[in-house]
């Protein structure tokens, strides 16, 4: 975390653009993931863990098949008949590595009354040290499997293929068999439908909410600031979010108010402190402290290092919190958007993690290999929920009314009518520029002044000569946008 106490200017200069903390962090994640995947994905060919055999000291074992497909070994229900497309099947190991030598081992398969042993295909499979085997029908309801000379490592299995229709399965068994028979296309369709339904529900819900809380825009343009609020708060009200644009607008606003200089140098830029202003808002002070350390000057490399050498920036999180808190305190939102977004995010993350658990568990159901696609669909739905839920309108009546006025002001800013020069509007362009940035219309606003003789603001210092309005915009906008995007990207989770 960025504690603000690090003096980045004393650090050695960067090489190759590598930020070691991030590289170390994500590198260790990658290695951990790789090791994990290798561990979970491999299996040992030619060997297996085994936990199921009917072997006991008694060299004779009885397997009972019931009419509903359940298998009992002795008196204990052990398994079910495997339902296949062309036939039903018992395929079960009965001895695995007994650890002792046995002269012989006998398994009697007892069939239910409705199944004739002559209708069954049967065989005994034996490996790892068995002298010989045989299987035969002893009576109409019993098949005998016998092995001789069984070594300590032997594995013996019995197989019986039962024609279709002789076993009556429960509705659940039939349902599970139907599921198992689903093709990959059907599973993919289901997994695609889940996020599709989630998205449709959220879009309809959003549509209804937006209709209920519609923002009425006054018919006439508003040519002055509707309310005296900082640009960042106007931006938060406009889009219910604090984004990189609010950060960019705050920087330009601070420059216009004489707190900082923006220095445009050939292929480079820098920020410089101008004067201390005790009227600065809390979040503005925090933003300045992120850009500057104790020095009055911060160049591009120093700012980049301060941004990129941290996984998260606490200061930028606090900046966001400050903007939301002020907008909520002014009565524009029913609840603090940050808190609400956090709750949606928590719900979405919980659903995502549950789906992830389901996804991982689904791999243990080897009969339903495509089940995991359903959980991927659930995870996609959770992410959609996290993204879309943040767009649910939460403005108060007052907030909607003021938003309407800001939208009318935006209409004024983005009008195509040129503004003629007069002494009254000599500084109009820069006065409204931060608001044009948060209202996504800075280019349109600049175009309104294209017929005026442009004078570079005092807070923008450039090494280039002969600056016009277009040059000014082409220099300023990329600088503040670049820095704002960088700063915005290091906010802590939950502060977006």
């Amino acid at each position, binding site marked *: 975390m960025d504690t603000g106490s690090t003096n980045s200017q004393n650090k050695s200069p960067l090489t190759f653009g590598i930020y070691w903390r991030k590289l170390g962090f*994500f590198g260790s*994640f*990658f290695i*951990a*993931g790789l090791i*994990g*995947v*290798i561990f*979970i*994905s*491999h*299996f*040992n*060919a*030619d*060997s*297996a*863990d*085994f936990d*199921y055999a009917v072997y006991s000291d008694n060299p004779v074992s009885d397997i009972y098949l019931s009419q509903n497909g359940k298998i009992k070994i002795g008196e204990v229900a052990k398994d079910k008949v495997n339902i296949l497309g062309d036939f039903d099947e018992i*395929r079960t*190991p009965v001895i*695995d590595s007994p650890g002792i030598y046995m002269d012989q081992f006998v398994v009697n398969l007892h069939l239910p009354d409705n199944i004739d042993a002559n209708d069954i295909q049967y*065989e005994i*499979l*034996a*490996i*790892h040290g068995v002298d010989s085997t045989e299987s035969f029908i002893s009576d109409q309801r019993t098949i005998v499997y016998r092995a001789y000379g069984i070594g300590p490592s032997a*594995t*013996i*299995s019995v*197989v019986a293929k039962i024609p279709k229709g002789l076993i009556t399965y429960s509705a659940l068994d039939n349902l599970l068999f139907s599921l198992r028979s689903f093709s990959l296309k059907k599973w993919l369709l289901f997994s695609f439908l889940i996020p599709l339904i989630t998205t449709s529900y959220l879009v309809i819900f959003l549509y209804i909410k937006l209709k209920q809380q519609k923002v009425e825009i006054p018919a006439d343009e508003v040519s002055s600031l509707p309310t005296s609020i900082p640009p960042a708060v106007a931006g938060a009200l406009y889009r219910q979010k604090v984004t990189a644009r609010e950060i960019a607008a705050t920087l330009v606003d601070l420059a216009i108010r004489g707190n900082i200089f923006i220095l445009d140098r050939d292929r480079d830029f820098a920020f410089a402190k101008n004067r201390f202003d005790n009227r600065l808002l809390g979040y503005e002070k925090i933003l300045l402290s992120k850009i500057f350390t104790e020095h009055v000057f911060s160049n591009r490399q120093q700012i980049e290092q301060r941004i990129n050498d941290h*996984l*998260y920036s*606490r200061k930028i*999180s*606090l900046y966001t*919190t400050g903007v939301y808190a002020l907008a909520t305190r002014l009565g524009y939102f029913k609840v603090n958007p940050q*808190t609400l977004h*956090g*709750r949606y*995010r*928590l719900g979405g*993350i*919980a659903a*995502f*993690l549950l789906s*992830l658990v389901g*996804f*991982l568990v689904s*791999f243990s159901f*080897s009969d339903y*290999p495509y089940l*995991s696609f359903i959980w*991927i669909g659930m*995870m996609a739905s959770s992410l959609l929920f996290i993204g879309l839920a943040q767009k649910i309108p939460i403005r108060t009546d007052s907030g909607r009314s003021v938003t309407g006025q800001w939208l009318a002001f935006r209409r004024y800013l983005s009008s195509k009518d040129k503004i003629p020069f007069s002494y009254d509007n000599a500084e109009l362009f820069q006065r409204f520029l931060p608001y044009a940035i948060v209202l996504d219309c800075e280019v349109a606003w600049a175009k309104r002044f294209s017929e005026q003789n442009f004078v570079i603001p005092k807070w923008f210092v450039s090494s280039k000569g002969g600056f016009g309005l277009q040059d000014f915009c082409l220099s300023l906008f990329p600088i503040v946008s670049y820095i704002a995007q960088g700063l915005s990207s290091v906010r*802590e*989770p*939950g502060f977006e």
Partner: protein
Amino acid sequence: MSEDRTFLDKILYGSGVVFDLAKWLILLLIVLSVVNTFFVGVFVVDGESMYPNFRDREVVLWRKGVYDSGQVKPNRADIVVVQYPGDPKHKKYVKRIVGLPNESVQISKGKVYINKKLYSEEYLNPSLLTEPDGYWKLKAGEYFVMGDNRPNSNDSRYFGPIETRFIMGKSIGVVFPRFRLVEDI
């Protein structure tokens, strides 16, 4: 900031951090799990049944479900991963396909005959003998598989031909400790 956080704030923050930091790892896990389940997997050879072509503890890459669609059929000499028909859930083997459906396989005096013709197995040590003698007539959809280390392999000679459903996939190559493709083996 941390001092005035409520319990809910801490949960929101904590879960957010965990999710934010882990999301790429989770995505990687999901992608690799899907790839590993449906497309390509790795296994560690445990045993000498395919020696000298696959050695004990070597890590082998294999294509899963390559034969499931029915469009690609297992070919003779393919090295395949099969389920042991006696315990398909728990035991998997690496073997080589020797006999194809409807063929006859005979082992006599150390040699293998397919449809009564001597089958030359170039991947085997010429001095190696295949035992014990036996004769198998394969049905439709049945394959005869054997390990390359004939004296030390449990395969179709002992558990009989296997059905297509027990063939899980095809080996691509060894990835560790020395990389080599199956075609070069």
